[in-house]
């Protein structure tokens, strides 16, 4: 196996683990009894289980801000809304992703998911997404290809300069918060690649159906 040489010897791995577990125990010294008991249970399970595998993709930076794992990056934004903004945005999102459909977003081809959550009595917006590539690779493309969709999605946030503005990237950065931890099941699968594999899978099943 290609990763064989990176795997540490058994004794190195166990002393690493002991050190990490001791740190965790120190952290949980002040935790509730529920937390302490749970930690000990987890530690016992870890020790009796199979040795840890190397992660398939390391966590790195998505560029200017945010995290990236393999080919996928994360973006979390919390931004104040203009008065009445939440009402308008709810209406627009319902129309866009409900009755109008997701074709427009599907066309982007780099967005795994998007989440809009209204916070603090509709005064703030929490926006989260997982997407392919670096932080700013396609922002300019949004500005020329689907500017109105972006301006409707974020036009009611305070201080929003417009997707075409040269200030747009600084605006996003000023409200973006990098995740402390983030799990990605398939860090090496882009949206495009996932769709391709789906097509291949379907074609293969169809072929197998036909030959017997």
């Amino acid at each position, binding site marked *: 196996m290609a990763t064989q040489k990176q795997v540490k010897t058994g004794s190195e791995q166990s002393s690493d683990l002991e050190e990490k577990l001791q740190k965790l125990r120190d952290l949980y010294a002040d935790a509730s009894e529920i937390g302490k008991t749970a930690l000990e249970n987890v530690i016992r399970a870890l020790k009796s289980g199979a040795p840890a595998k190397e992660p398939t993709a390391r966590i790195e930076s998505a*560029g200017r801000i945010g995290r990236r794992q393999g*080919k996928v990056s994360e973006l979390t934004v919390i931004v104040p809304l203009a008065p009445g903004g939440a009402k308008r945005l709810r209406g627009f999102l319902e129309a866009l992703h409900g009755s109008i459909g997701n074709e427009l977003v599907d*066309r*982007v*081809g*780099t967005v795994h998911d998007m989440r809009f959550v209204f916070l603090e009595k509709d005064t703030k917006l929490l926006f989260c997404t997982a997407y*392919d*590539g*670096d932080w700013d*690779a*396609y922002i*300019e*493309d*949004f*500005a*020329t*290809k*689907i*500017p109105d969709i972006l301006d409707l999605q974020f036009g009611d946030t305070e201080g929003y300069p417009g*997707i*075409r*503005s*040269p200030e747009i990237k600084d605006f996003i950065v000023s409200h973006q918060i990098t995740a402390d931890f983030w799990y990605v099941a398939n860090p090496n699968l*882009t949206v*495009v*690649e996932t*769709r*391709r594999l789906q097509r291949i899978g379907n074609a293969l099943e169809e072929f197998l159906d036909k030959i017997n």
Partner: protein
Amino acid sequence: MSFEGQRGEEPRHGPAVDLHDIQATVMRHRPEPYFGSHLFLHINDAHGGGEFLRRLAPHISSASDWWNSKDPWIAVAISYPGLVALGVPEDSLQSFPEAFRVGMAARAEKLRDYGVNDPKNWDLPFGSGQIHIQVSIISDTEEKWRRTMETARQHYQGFSGVTVLLIQDFGAQPDSRNSLGYKDSIGQPAIEGSGIDPLPGQGQPIKAGEFILGYPGESGVPLAMPQPDVLGRNGTYVGLRKYQSRVGAFNRFLRGNGQTDEERELLAAKLVGRWRSGASLTLAPTKDDAMLGEDALRNNDFTYASDPQGRRVPLGCHMRRMNPRDTKTPVLTDVNIHRIIRRSTTYGAPYDPNAISEQDDEDARGIYFLFISAKAMNTLEFLQQEWINDGNFMNLGNERDPIVGLQEEGAPFTIPKEPVRHRIHGIETFNVLRGGEYLFMPSLSALNWLAGLNAEAVKR
């Protein structure tokens, strides 16, 4: 007329961009044949640097008659350390984009310049911060080039304000072919307001602001511009990349995957999307057509409408990656905002089809690429990340550009075919990066402003 592509026509519409203030190289295509030199200079002190620019400024050609490349011309560009050395005020320095200020070497991660392309392997003086000014001299005859070089020499020789770090001659290649034996620089973007109708196949002209500072870009608004206005307006940026061509590896790859000369030449065409002559596989799918390759009115006149699967021009070939035209990509992309003006200058020994040794890979020969755009740093990073060192946008997974990509061991190249695609494994990095710089190409008025900075300071 030395370059047929420009047809020597007078402008049909009044130019909307200020051609008189823009440097000629931004608009003017490289002549064929071509002869020239790149000079890389270090400024010793602010006063000397200013004086050098003051003497040089009257010799820098404007783009006012860019379609005429009969006379040799000189271009000048300045790095961020160069602007610092010239004594540009701090608030003005801070108005330049971050990628430009830190320089190309410091952006290696964003540019995916890893491994053999890592700046630590670059040739000096690239990436060292020593390069302050790049002066380029370009001509259509050897005699005029030498004469202009002599004029230039008189300017810097015995002048203590600047030191010449490197002089790199280029051009003078048989048939103007590049270091891998292809005709290049076909298919430049057409710029709106440049005064001449686009060539067939160039597509709709792209907004001038994508290439020159101070004009609206494709999104309708001008890009952020360095301040003061006189410094930024009508200027642009240059991303310089020095490539060493590994001709031995390239020829070994062709021989290893083609039995006959015909098969090898077809493979060579599949890698680029064009035959060596410049003829596109769209128009000449089975064999080279030298007449077509020559003809600037025909060699770029095509779309991919009849070739969506890439059976003629592979989806992953160099030409289709660098300009997907009407290809339906699975990722929402505006092709117009990722185009860049390319000024390719080949240096060193001509391409040798019989060079197959590893020693041949190290023969000094390759290309100094000048990528010109009002957002050159941004565009280069996008191209390196998305269109060169990835295949996602063309449904090709991890596959990379066969000509300028940085290949990993066993890397594939896919040639679409009926009934099933042919995939070659073990493509290598044929062009290795050996240097790079980000430079600012000022307008003629900005050049005078820069030259006057220190004179004013002394007066005060």
